[in-house]
């Protein structure tokens, strides 16, 4: 049976469902409404429908749309408790997202009156236990074994799966890092449970006590709230810089539990080498973040400030025509009509007035932040956020704050 269907005899063709559907999945192309010759009933296009239920809600009065939510048999929900997190680490350091997911986990644990645990597997990882406990983790489930290489992701997935099956936390969180987005899906597919990627909000639903997982969809145009009702653990990943890091506890009371009975398998992957790459100038057109300088830079050496902000944001350096013409920066950095057209996630325009020909090159950026001393500069018309101020004060402050966090 289809997961969603229209009960034709209840449908009066009022179109409330069509108006409520964010995905344009409903049309009045069904059989005629009972007793009418001028109106048809609703039909749902399964290809476009995401089963979000907005139409069911809209059709409350007539109850003409029904979603049958069933899932294949999941785990025994009542046997699961506690909030667990994946303590990702590599090359001697805990991943920077980990304190943030611990922060989120602690909030959830409070809401569920339960504890926070961290899964820590690898070689020499006991060196991280103090740090993790200092963030308020109650238990560390650890496998410290010299044969687990930093890059043996398949072994890590095996061990994490085993630990989850044994310890049965009801929630398992990981970072939306390169590794997190590779390892957690493998684990979820292994133990057959639900995983929601890149959550921007995590909370416990009052009524159902389920983990409400909220994330952006359709390139960020809409937000979706997702539940994993019948399967455990409820898994989610969270990107860096989305959640607030856990505050350090003055008197850590957590303990370390070594799970050495779990057999460590041999990796099927062969690690050859790791090559560190810290490129100071990320390719301009491909960059996710671009920091651009304009006439307001006033002097070529001041471009160092722009470069520093670019480095701090992991972005590329751009420039307006004014700066390029003045010879302050090479033409290859020029953004605009006769320079490059860019569409980064974030475009930070410093000391750029916002002439049409510059806007032509960057106005499609997802987010535009403008810093200019002139409150009437046209750039503020297209900027999502603007700071009116002296860029020589604002940019250093911005760098300082970003580096501190």
């Amino acid at each position, binding site marked *: 049976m289809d*997961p969603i269907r229209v009960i034709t005899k209840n449908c009066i063709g009022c179109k409330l469902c069509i108006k409520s559907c964010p995905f*344009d999945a409903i049309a009045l192309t069904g059989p005629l409404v009972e007793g009418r010759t001028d109106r048809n009933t609703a039909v749902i296009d399964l290809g476009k429908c995401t089963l979000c239920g907005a139409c069911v809600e809209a059709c409350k009065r007539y109850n003409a749309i029904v979603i049958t939510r069933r899932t294949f048999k999941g785990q025994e929900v009542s046997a699961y408790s506690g909030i667990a997190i994946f303590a990702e680490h590599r090359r001697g350091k805990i991943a920077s997202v980990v304190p943030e997911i611990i922060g989120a986990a602690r909030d959830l644990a409070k809401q569920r009156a339960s504890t926070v645990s961290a899964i820590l597997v690898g070689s020499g990882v006991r060196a991280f236990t103090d740090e993790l406990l200092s963030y308020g983790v109650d238990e560390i489930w650890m496998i410290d074994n010299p044969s687990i290489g930093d890059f043996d992701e398949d072994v890590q997935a095996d061990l994490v799966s085993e630990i989850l099956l044994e310890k049965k936390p009801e929630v398992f969180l990981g970072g939306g890092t390169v590794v997190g987005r590779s390892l957690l899906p493998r684990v979820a*597919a292994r133990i057959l449970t*639900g*995983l929601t990627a890149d959550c921007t909000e995590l909370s416990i639903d009052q009524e159902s006590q389920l983990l409400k997982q909220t994330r952006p969809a359709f390139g960020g145009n809409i937000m979706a709230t*997702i539940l994993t009702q019948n399967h455990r653990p409820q898994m989610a990943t969270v990107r860096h810089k989305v959640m607030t890091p856990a505050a350090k506890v003055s008197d850590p009371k957590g303990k370390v539990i070594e799970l050495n009975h779990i057999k460590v398998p041999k990796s099927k992957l062969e690690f050859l080498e790791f090559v560190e790459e810290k490129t100071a100038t990320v390719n301009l057109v491909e960059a996710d973040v671009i920091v651009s300088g304009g006439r307001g830079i006033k002097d070529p050496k001041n471009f160092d400030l722009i470069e520093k902000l670019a480095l701090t944001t992991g972005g590329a350096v751009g420039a307006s025509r004014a700066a390029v013409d003045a010879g302050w920066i090479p033409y290859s950095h020029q953004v605009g009509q006769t320079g490059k057209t860019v569409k980064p996630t974030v475009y930070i325009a410093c000391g750029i007035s916002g002439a049409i020909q510059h806007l032509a090159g960057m106005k499609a950026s997802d987010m535009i932040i403008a810093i200019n001393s002139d409150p009437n500069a046209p750039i503020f018309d297209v900027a999502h956020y603007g700071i009116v101020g002296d860029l020589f004060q604002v940019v250093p402050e*911005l760098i300082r704050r970003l580096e501190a966090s």
Partner: protein
Amino acid sequence: MKVFVCIKQVPDTTNVRINPETNTLVREGVQSIINPFDVYALEEGVRLKEKHGGTVTVITMGPPQAADALRDAIALGADNAYLVSDRAFAGADTLATAYALACTVRKLGGADVILMGRQAIDGDTGQVGPGVAENLGISHITDIRKIEEISDSRIVVERLLEDGYARLAARLPVVLTVVKEINTPRLPSLKGKLAAKKAEIPVLKASDVDADVERLGLNGSPTQVMKIFTPTRPSGGKKFTGEPASTVGALLSELTLAGISIRKNGK
């Protein structure tokens, strides 16, 4: 060399907008395209075939119109295409999708390398690749930016990480998800487009791929969407005036609230 490429037909989300009055997605005039990351995967697959011989088979799980994406893929160099389509698949989350695709790859048989893009631009989860590998019981590596070498049984790749890249080797068959750094995709060719027009694209139903119906579609999806809403977007721009310490602080708070990070690698 038998290469499989899993592609997804997606709306061009770069052109999707919200109607401010109705708070619904404006899909009119928004084209359906092959997920851009999958185009890179397809290009890599075609290059492997050109270098080592063999075939490139594209598969997609989707509604009937997803066949258009498969034809586009043929115009870009794929040899065969299969549409995995069945009402039983409707409402699938990434677990159910990965299961269905894995059943298909297993049924068609003979895969050496299974490629796909690192994520789809509508869902952005990146979860299907690892899921397919798990279901097939083979290795997977994500974020591939280069295939260095490949033999009958072994492949050496460069995997892009936040702070550099790792060189790894895996045994075939293997699932690889690729990033855009891996190549520059070719444009379609006219001969390819003509072939695509004439191509026969078999439609595989759940029973054709020996899939357990319990594990498909909404029923096979542990995660289910409960609510959709439009995010609060900055309208007309927010301007902060005052001392740098306070304006910068205010800006960063706003960004965090909107779920946007400008900290390096923070997206």
